[in-house]
């Protein structure tokens, strides 16, 4: 019975030890810290510092004409700093974030006594390692030796402890600063994405209701026409929904959308407008913001082509110019009339939206301008950097009997 209990107890104890060891290991692993806190770097740094001190004291002994072996000095200083390194690293591991969070009272009540204890402890270990020191003196007891070492090095040791303490705090502050900076950048990206989503969303309903209105009016006079327009609208919605929230799409997809949009408008304007679309074949896979052209086209209809009762011409072109894509939409109508544009509210919304999106996607690497190329023709030009999709998606295609 007793034995059993003891067995249970020891197994429990072992488990606890194992648990602690695991926790300890996890703590080492989980703290992805700057390279300074890698044990090899941290302790190695201390030992190097020790060697430097050894060299310095060797040189100063030499200048005083006192001969001592450099190796001996190296050993003594090296071990001293090795012990310091190990102690400080373990303290860092043990205290962790508490070093960062400690306030002045905590430092005075906790860290100060700790520093004294560590200083004494370190000298105790060191004396154990070098029983032959101090040399050329009468034999001393262990505690006398410790006393002797402390007399000589207490201030130095305290200095070393506090320097390490503030170094760790300094690195912590730096890290926190970097984290904050990173979070801010991340937030900025997210805000931009949210804005882009919002801007894309504005396009769909606007255009959708206009077209539905068109169908509603058409179905009173031309059932087949309304039917066609409904089919076109569904097709358009289908590919828009399929595309989801993807921001950049191949130009071939954007142009497919444009062609469908133009087909609907063609129906709506009953042959009063002739539409032309020209795309350089090498640009089919170039990436452009989804539905970037639709507001411009809509603008061309509402403020230009709709004012003509026949022979309207709308040209959409995509050309490559070096490392840029030039998209142009040209339409006939009444030209650019500042008076007119000012009196039509809402006109700016679509184009402002386009400008915002270009700005969000490409920063300053893009341009957008609207000008009158002749008395009755207005042209919108967009220039954007030429980019290609990493892996172009193949759409459904199949062969068979």
């Amino acid at each position: 019975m007793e034995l059993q209990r003891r067995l249970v107890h020891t197994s429990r104890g072992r488990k606890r030890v194992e648990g602690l060891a695991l926790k300890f290991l996890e703590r080492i692993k989980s703290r992805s810290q700057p390279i300074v806190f890698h044990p090899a770097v941290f302790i190695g740094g201390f030992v190097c510092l020790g060697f430097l001190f050894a060299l310095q004291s060797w040189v100063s002994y030499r200048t005083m004409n006192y001969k001592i072996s450099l190796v001996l000095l190296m050993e003594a200083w090296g071990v001293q700093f090795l012990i310091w390194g190990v102690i400080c690293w373990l303290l860092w591991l043990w205290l962790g974030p508490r070093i960062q969070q400690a306030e002045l009272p905590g430092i005075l009540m906790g860290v100060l006594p700790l520093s004294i204890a560590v200083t004494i402890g370190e000298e105790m270990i060191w004396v154990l390692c070098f029983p032959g020191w101090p040399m050329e003196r009468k034999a001393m007891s262990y505690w006398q030796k410790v006393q002797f070492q402390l007399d000589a090095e207490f201030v130095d040791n305290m200095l070393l402890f506090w320097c390490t303490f503030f170094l760790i705090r300094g690195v912590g502050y730096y890290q926190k600063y970097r984290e904050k900076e990173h979070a801010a950048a991340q937030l900025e990206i997210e805000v931009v994405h949210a804005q882009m989503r919002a801007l894309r969303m504005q396009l769909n309903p606007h255009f959708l209701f206009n077209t539905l209105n068109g169908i509603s009016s058409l179905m009173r006079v031309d059932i087949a026409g309304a039917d066609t327009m409904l089919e076109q609208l569904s097709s358009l919605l289908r590919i828009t929904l399929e595309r989801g929230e993807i921001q950049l799409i191949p130009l071939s997809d954007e142009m497919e959308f444009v062609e469908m949009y133009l087909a609907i408008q063609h129906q709506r304007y009953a042959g009063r407008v002739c539409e032309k679309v020209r795309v350089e074949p090498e640009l089919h896979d170039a990436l452009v913001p989804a539905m970037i052209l639709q507001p411009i086209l809509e603008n061309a209809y509402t403020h230009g082509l709709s004012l003509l009762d026949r022979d309207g011409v709308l040209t959409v072109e995509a050309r490559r110019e070096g490392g840029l894509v030039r998209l142009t939409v040209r339409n006939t109508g009444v030209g650019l009339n500042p008076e007119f544009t000012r009196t039509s509210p809402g006109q700016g919304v679509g184009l402002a939206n386009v400008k915002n999106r270009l700005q969000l996607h490409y920063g300053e690497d893009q341009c957008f301008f609207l000008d009158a190329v002749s008395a009755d023709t207005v042209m919108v030009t967009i220039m954007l950097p030429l980019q290609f999709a990493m892996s172009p998606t193949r759409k459904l295609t199949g062969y068979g009997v």
Partner: protein
Amino acid sequence: MIHAVVADDELLARQKLRQLLREEPEVDVIGESATAAETIELVRVAQPDLLFLDIRMPGMDGFDVIEALASEPSFTMPRVIFTTAYDSYALRAFDIHAVDYLLKPFTLERLHSAVENARQQLQGSKQPSAREDEAKSNGDRYTQRIVFKSRGRILFLAVSEIRWIGAEENYVRICTQSETHLLRETMSRLEERLDPQMFLRVHRSSIVNLQFVKEVRTDADGECMVILVNGQKIPMSRSYRARIQDWLHR
């Protein structure tokens, strides 16, 4: 006369199809069904030539209906035109040799072309001609239909409707009588699929359907070109000239 059955779980959808089919004098709707089980029963009894089939129906789906019917021995399967709001079944429908795949809502025009395809297939199966046999023997090696998505529609395009094909970098443009479609495909891959008896590569970047070639001409500058029946000019490389001359004088 084509006897047709309309299977769709929605009354309005059936009504619309019935109404549109009134414009097709050759098609006679002999029955309607609203569930998969009803459809199987109706088709078994009425033995229609053509089945307009919705895919998502209560109980089983459209493909289950076809599977159930196909498993019956000595039963002639009707031709199937799928009518659905979902585009994700297109390849499957293509693989089981459906006549067409209509995405709802569709227009009379689109329905008409589907019915036309069905009519041709039905005629073909009733009186197989010599040409049809020839096509069939080549059928294993060469494609007769291409399925693809264009402008939000699913097309089962018979290659015989293609007039010519132009290369545009990583894409090909397929031109039919009334439309053009941009496909992400290479010329060489497409050329492999096409029957050389019907299609001829006349240029690095163009393939023509010989059925639509009117003449081959060399203009004042010595440039060769192929003229299609609709008057369209397609540039031709000299190296291909002999091949097409051969064909024209056959």
